[in-house]
């Protein structure tokens, strides 16, 4: 109860967790490989939203020095982490997709269930 109320007050976290769960569910249950890759990206988007939300305080500005005293800055470290995370996510996605293309050229299907049966 306490948790759900807290989450509704901080909508970013609720959305982030929902996205993470949608992505995870898609990755683990869908049999289409492309949908699995989409799930992977949705999951990672959820994590990135979560990370960015951690660094943001209400009415905080971009972290540029010289804006006068009493200004609240957003935490720049999490943005850096998200950038690195995006780079990793992009490379993983590109690599997975290239392997899926090769697999499709060989088997003509993207369905994991059918692939599992193709191999003895």
């Amino acid at each position, binding site marked *: 109860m306490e948790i759900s109320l807290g989450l509704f007050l901080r909508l970013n976290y609720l959305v982030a967790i929902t996205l993470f769960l949608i992505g995870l569910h898609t990755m*683990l249950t869908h049999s289409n490989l492309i949908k699995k890759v989409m799930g992977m990206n949705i999951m990672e988007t959820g994590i990135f939203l979560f990370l960015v939300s*951690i660094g943001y305080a209400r009415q905080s500005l971009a972290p540029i020095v010289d804006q006068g005293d009493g200004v609240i800055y957003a935490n720049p470290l999490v943005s850096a982490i998200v950038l690195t*995370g995006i780079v990793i996510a992009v490379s993983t996605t590109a690599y*997975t997709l290239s392997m899926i293309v*090769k697999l499709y050229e060989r088997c003509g299907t993207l369905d994991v269930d059918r692939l599992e049966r193709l191999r003895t």
Partner: protein
Amino acid sequence: MLKHLPVLLTVMPLAGAFLVPVFGRSGRGHRMALVTVAVTLLAAVTMLGITAGGEVLRYRVGDWPPPWGIELRVDALGALLASFFALVYLAVTIFAGRDIPGELNPASVHWYWSLLLLLLAGINGVVTAHDLFNLFVFTEVFSLAACGIISIRDRLDSLEAAIKYLILSAVAAGCILLGIALVYMVTGHLNLSYLAAELPMAARLYPKNVLAMVALLTTGFALKSALFPLHVWLPDAHSSAPSPSSALLSGLVVKVGIVALIRLFTTVFTGPVIAALPVPVFMIVMAVGGIIFGALFAMTQRDLKRMLAYSTVTQVGYIYLGFGLLNETALTGALLHIINHALLKSMLFMCAGLFIHRTGKRRIADMAGLARHMPLTMSCFTIGAMAMVGIPVTNGFVSKWHLVLGTLHGGQPLLAGVILLSSLLSSIYYFPVVVAGWFGHPASPPPPGPEGPPSMVWPIVALASLCLILGVWPHLPLRLLGDVARTLLGR
């Protein structure tokens, strides 16, 4: 120069990985990889010499002081693991020089050396990391490189195994990154020492965040290191890869996740943070499952490499068992088993690779009578099988002995029974191969000729003799690891 050793451990293989595709096209790639691995081994051994006395090497990347900059740390455990990993790497790289050109498309051979060095960079990065996010980045580096050395063999089964591995590995990466986000949220630090200082307070203020964070990080790294029941990707991936890749994947890559978890649980999640959470119990239960089911699955396999892959599931279970007990003897056994299994399983996979290279067959039934044609390799395989079962004078005996003693120290005699039972099960699936190899009659003998190219036979013999040496004189690593275990447990 000496000051920069901790970062060179990662930077050298990384630089090599980028130089090989540029300069290593016309068959020079293998020599470049060999030189890089040898220099990395030299760096690791130098650091072992410095840290063996208990000194810890700290390195600030770009000279930014922590908590702002990235910190690397090499203690005796890190240096010892890096040395043994580099040693195994050297043996496998020498072996691969003759095996890989036969297994791959000629156009992709030099890419293989590049990926091999990238994998080494990732492994060393995790071993030296003292920063949670750095740990994550290098985990991803070695995971992608590990998928690369599977899928580079352009065949359908390798491709499928690599996709399966990559997708599960992405789930693990998601869990780890979310865990890192949660821990940063409650503590504001990523450096492990600062986290250790902040976390007890945070655990009291936000117990649910810490609970979720520990669960996510444990699941993530357990998936990367194939703890039962998260091992489903391992048998396919390790058996369909080219043999040198299998040797590295089974010997080193699964261990790296465990090393990361050992680091986290001994430096950060200690004392009051973990006291209320049943993580060690969870690990012991899963480890026992892995030990028993890995052995049962291995017994039903007909393919030699698949059997070895399931045996890895069992051995990972042993390591987690020793780790989950969290007492000094058991942790010493677990750390020693990381090293011993790295030597053994790489050696066994290289033996399997040489069998396949010579005969072109990979079923266990086809191993019958091979000792007549390949006596040296079969002897090494026999040593490896004996060590896996845990027969004295082999290194496997020493680590299993410490694990059993550790279960008894921890007051869990039932777990000692599990280890003994599993040794019996291992003998059921390893010894038929050995007996048939020595005394069986080959259905179709391989073409006459020497046992194999010397550059493939001698790395196997070298690792096998090292297994025997560590079995007869285990004192040196044992004393060092005993000290490490005491330090890690804070006693």
